[in-house]
């Protein structure tokens, strides 16, 4: 399966701390994306990193990609209570038709 697998399943931190979530996958990819979901509703795209990129930043978000280890990490710096949500990685396979395959997500709780 090419499915992204997030780790940890749940993460609880205090406001101001950094949160790191990891994603592993099994096949060659075109890109890897991170999404956020609040309260079981629609997902919101956060950031896309292509297979030839190693690191990408967007505001307080930093994503790394290690294709040799087939893994990615999402770092949220200086977390806020409003960052509380579920975070999913999704991989776009380099072969076959290219829908995204989502992992099961990491549930992040940021306490004030």
């Amino acid at each position: 399966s090419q499915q992204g697998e997030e780790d940890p399943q749940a993460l609880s931190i205090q406001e101001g701390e950094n949160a790191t979530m990891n994603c592993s996958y099994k096949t060659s990819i075109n890109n890897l994306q991170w999404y956020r979901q609040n309260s079981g509703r629609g997902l919101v795209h956060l950031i896309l990193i292509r297979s030839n990129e190693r690191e990408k930043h967007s505001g307080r978000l930093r994503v790394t990609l290690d294709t040799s280890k087939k893994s990615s990490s999402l770092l949220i710096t200086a977390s806020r209570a409003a960052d509380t949500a579920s975070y999913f990685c999704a991989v776009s396979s380099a072969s076959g038709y290219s829908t995204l395959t989502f992992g099961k997500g990491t549930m992040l709780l940021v306490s004030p």
Partner: protein
Amino acid sequence: GAGVSQSPSNKVTEKGKDVELRCDPISGHTALYWYRQRLGQGLEFLIYFQGNSAPDKSGLPSDRFSAERTGESVSTLTIQRTQQEDSAVYLCASSLVLRGETQYFGPGTRLLVL
């Protein structure tokens, strides 16, 4: 333009009834996707459309599920003879093109089968 919209937001139905869920993608997006998400779980891919065509229906859970798309726009997901295990949030997403690009999600339809 507007984002992806889905209707209804919530649907409560009795076991055995048919339900129809609607998705309006972002205008101009050629690719459209349906997912199912059970409570506390990840996204389960159901089907995608490239234009009005759905080349691979193998992700649909059973033959009670069907989907269509017309005018390279609106899509409907129909569940016949609903079962309690069909209870979930059904999410629709669209993207400009099919090839692994960013997907834009609707708010979902929360289906409860009693």
